[in-house]
């Protein structure tokens, strides 16, 4: 009996370790493949270089970094007002029944394949952007709108959970002191839920940074430093996905190096999200 217990425990431990091992192997692999070119070009030259033409031996990914940053900021600008007001409404004003129906529906948004988002962007959004703002359609604006919708469920759902985790007694205490519902939300509930909401936002940012398919379809993919929100841009993820199947030698290594930059960015975002969430719990 005891022997069997130990066996199960060791088996589970090995399975758990193997998932961690996979993470390390991936990290090791892309570092091994990508690091040489970064060392060759120099970290500064690789990250801050604005010239990307692998055939001529120029490997600067700065335009892609800028593209990723702009699209992510744009996605946040689109998503935050929607997701936060949605979360506040569903958590604080709607009845339990309405919330029970609407929250799963919002979370369903996360289940739509990203290629479908890209498709909708091309068919519906491009003509609208052309008509109202000009340009050809594929640009930062289009990508930001679509990505904003894609990260909506992540932020909304985590924000609802954080708001609901605020003790009910805070609400009663504040209301009984003559505060209106909105004053209670603004002065007591939001500050108490702040850390949870922030970590939700950061997870949303992580999702936006890592998104590939939808972005390839609607961001335009030009390797330029954009001058306006109607310019097409290429993101880090799109860069890898677009060029990987024909890249060789230094070019191939440079794509892996792009992966390293993405990997580090996502790890940093996750660490920030976890720290904020933990600090919230300790408080």
């Amino acid at each position, binding site marked *: 009996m005891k022997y069997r217990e130990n066996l199960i425990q060791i088996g589970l431990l090995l399975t758990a370790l193997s998932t961690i091992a996979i993470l390390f192997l991936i990290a090791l692999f892309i570092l091994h493949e990508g690091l040489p070119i970064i060392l060759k070009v120099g970290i500064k030259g690789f990250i801050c270089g604005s010239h990307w033409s692998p055939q001529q031996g120029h490997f600067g990914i700065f335009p892609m970094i800028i593209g990723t940053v702009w699209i992510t900021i744009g996605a946040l600008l689109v998503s935050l007002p929607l997701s936060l007001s949605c979360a506040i409404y569903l958590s604080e004003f709607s009845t339990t029944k309405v919330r029970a129906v609407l929250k799963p529906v919002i979370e369903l948004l996360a289940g739509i394949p990203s290629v479908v988002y890209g498709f909708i962007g091309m068919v519906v959004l491009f003509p609208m952007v052309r008509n109202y703002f000009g340009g050809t359609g594929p640009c930062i604006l289009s990508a930001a709108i679509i990505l904003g919708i894609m990260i909506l469920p992540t932020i909304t759902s985590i924000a609802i959970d954080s708001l609901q985790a605020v003790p009910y007694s805070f609400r009663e*205490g504040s209301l*009984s002191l003559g505060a209106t519902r909105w004053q209670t939300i603004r002065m007591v509930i939001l500050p108490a839920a702040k850390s949870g909401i922030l970590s939700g936002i950061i997870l949303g940012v992580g999702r936006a940074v890592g998104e590939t398919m939808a972005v390839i379809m609607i961001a335009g993919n030009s390797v330029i430093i954009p001058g306006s929100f109607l310019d097409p841009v290429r993101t880090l993820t799109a860069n890898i996905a677009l060029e990987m199947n024909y890249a060789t030698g230094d070019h191939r290594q440079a794509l892996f190096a792009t992966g390293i930059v993405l990997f580090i960015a996502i790890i940093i975002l996750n660490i920030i999200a976890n720290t904020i969430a933990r600090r919230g719990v300790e408080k």
Partner: protein
Amino acid sequence: MEDKIVVKGLNLCFDTHHVLKSIDLNIRANEILSIIGPANSGKTSFLRTLNRLNDIISTVKITGEILLDGIDIYKKDILLPWLRRKVGMVFALPVPLPRSIFENIVYGPRLNGVTSKAKLEELVEKTLKAAFLWDEVKDRLHLSGTKLSGGQQQRLCIARALALEPEVILLDEPCSGLDPLSTSRIEEALYELKKQYTIVLVTNNTKQAARVGDNVAFFLMGEMIEYGSTEQIFTVPHDKRTEDYITGRFG
């Protein structure tokens, strides 16, 4: 003495659950009314009808009339913040907001538009003294309210309610989680406070009702069984069920 609050034919339901059954009760000004009764007798729900805190539960249905100084508080044009400033409340579990002691107390007055720093400081000192807490915290007003001990937190909550300058104070088992010493401090405070305020005290502790109450109402299963002066209820209760409860035969 004049009636501060008049309750007429009050009924309260949550969904299909009939919690309060035609309650008629007058609460006199500057007295402590204790409401006693076993668990689930509707005491707390009754208390929360007086500042309309039940309204935040969407399934609630209330009929009947509650007059505060002759004004029906369930009339359509009653502003809830106004009502809740007139009728302050202290909960069973002390729940300071996650702010400093000072900020906990000035929270209500600030919302009401008091901004002068001198006035707020004066209010903090006055209310903390009235709640017998001033001496213990005067040097650390900027400490988080949640760092205080349970008894101190409850007195902070009383001070916070007083800072609204209410006319009525509702207390929902304010001593249920406290040790005897903290309890006696709060009772001391109540005794002083009734000179200025009308106090409604829900308590599970019949001895407490006997110690501090002027009048007592006994609730059972959503009905008010008996109402009378503290002396009468505890010496010659008219109803058999009241007698059974206060002598400890049930509840």
